């Protein structure tokens, strides 16, 4: 099974190609540059390098969020269109789960983290054991201080991964003390191999793959607030 994996949910661009269980190619560029310009040329070049034609592909895997709205959409659009038009299956996996799965942990709790600005993060909690990733707390958009309170209730050491977790390290360290361990520098971003592994088990219909933004659009939030106010005013 020749598989192409794409993750553009943060500014990191991760592409991987596998042939069955063998990882044939991994490419990561960790640059704050425009995904829209770079993703397809990167896919094209990497496929040429490993001597694969588009029609050789048998499966597409994509990180469908959470993360940068535009970034997630670019990856999902390319992945679902490729899968649909090549008539091959697609698997959508959490970009946070694949970041967690990139950690060199044998057994323990791993917290992957993307910054979501204004003291918020996109995060989730995962347990890694013998190479298996288990979701403990679903991906969400949360204030980092509230998230620490939730993690503290576990009474267990948590390994924080992802380069953007470094931004929140002082706050987390102060709230959680010794139970918080940081590997943001050692595991800065998702390894394409982790994405390929996570997506190997599932598949969906390309038309039905949609981003998981983990939060409403701002206009919807404002609209709901305005409607609540109106409802209260009417009472």
């Amino acid at each position, binding site marked *: 099974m020749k598989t192409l994996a794409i993750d553009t949910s943060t500014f990191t661009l991760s592409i991987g190609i596998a042939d069955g269980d063998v990882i044939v190619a991994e490419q990561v560029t960790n640059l704050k540059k*425009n995904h*829209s310009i*770079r993703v*397809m*040329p990167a896919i094209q070049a990497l496929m040429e390098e490993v001597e694969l034609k588009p029609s050789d592909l048998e499966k597409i895997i994509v990180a469908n969020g959470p993360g940068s709205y535009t970034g997630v*959409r670019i990856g999902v*659009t390319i992945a679902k*269109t490729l899968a649909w*038009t090549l008539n091959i299956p697609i698997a959508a996996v959490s970009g946070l789960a694949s970041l967690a799965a990139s950690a060199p942990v044998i057994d323990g709790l791993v917290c992957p983290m993307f910054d979501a600005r204004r003291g918020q993060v996109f995060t989730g909690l995962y347990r890694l054991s013998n190479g298996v990733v288990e979701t403990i707390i679903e991906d969400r958009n949360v204030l980092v201080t509230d998230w620490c309170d939730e993690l503290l209730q576990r009474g267990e050491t948590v390994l924080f991964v992802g380069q953007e977790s470094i931004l929140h390290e002082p706050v987390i360290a102060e709230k959680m003390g010794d139970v918080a361990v940081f590997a943001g520098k050692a595991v800065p971003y998702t390894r394409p191999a982790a994405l390929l592994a996570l997506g190997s088990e599932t598949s969906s219909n390309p038309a039905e793959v949609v981003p998981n933004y983990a939060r409403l659009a701002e206009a919807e939030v404002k609209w709901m607030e305005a409607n609540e106010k109106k409802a209260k005013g009417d009472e």
Partner: protein
Amino acid sequence: MKKDTYIFGIETSCDETAAAIVKNGTEIVANVVSSQIESHKRFGGVVPEIASRHHVEQIIAVFQETLEQAGLTFKDMDAIAVTKGPGLVGALLIGVNAAKAIAFAHQLPLIGVHHIAGHIYANRLVKEMAFPLLSLVVSGGHTEIVYMAEHGSFKVIGETRDDAAGEAYDKVARTLHLPYPGGPHIDRLAAAGEDTYGLPRVRLEEGSYDFSFSGLKSAVINTVHNAQQRGEELVPENLAASFQASVVEVLTEKTIRAAKEYCVEQVLLAGGVAANEGLRASLEKAFSDMPATELVIPPLSLCTDNAAMIAAAGTILFEQGKKDGMDMNGHPGLDIETF
């Protein structure tokens, strides 16, 4: 015999997710438009983030239906044409990246199209173009008079200096508490009213083909305010008719004058506001006195955003050998003269 050319077109620059297949640049084989207008109504206008979310959800279903309508596959296509600008950047990027994925998968040429060029080329799906020609482009974001000496050549001879005609319609509609989108409501009200409010006609300096609608919009708002302060009842039908009369008169007058000065064979109406009955009627009446110049007005379904127009414009670029690379981007402010 020359082989037929089939172009697959994609349009996602605003709030319509659209795909189409056009044969030889003139014949619609399939044309599918999924409108999001219902989702944006509650916000009173198009919300870019919501538009982008819908595009990514709808796009495969739209592609699928297009191929099914045509009974064709991508193996039958000669190129993929897509709107690369202007428009909402996040929305554009969905079409652009989907187009790249298809072009890559099937090793087809990728052609980025200017959205307004698309609107102009919607006319070629109705009537073959005769050069030189002028196009009056009126939409939510544009009010322009474009001169074309030949295929693929665009020169803007007049444009709005402030609001687009469509924007003015939406703002006036809001002032009159009409639902979004306001254009069709004003058009309907205007048909039942009379031009009684004496609103200004903004013609700018002598000889200019530029437009300005913000003064007219303010005049409508002031009229409503003054009436409220004096406790007078307004006649919405008459106010709509007065506003529309001013817009239509200026658009018609400048178009006629430009058509004469540039000695054109054809005048093409293009863009969403081309659906406006008042504007259509006024242009038809004015051009009936100019038999040497043909007025072409596309059907309503081709005036609003669609992908057949993008495929039609893309066909010309394809024939001219113009292509884009896999590094093509979305360009929210793309210039029609240089794209």
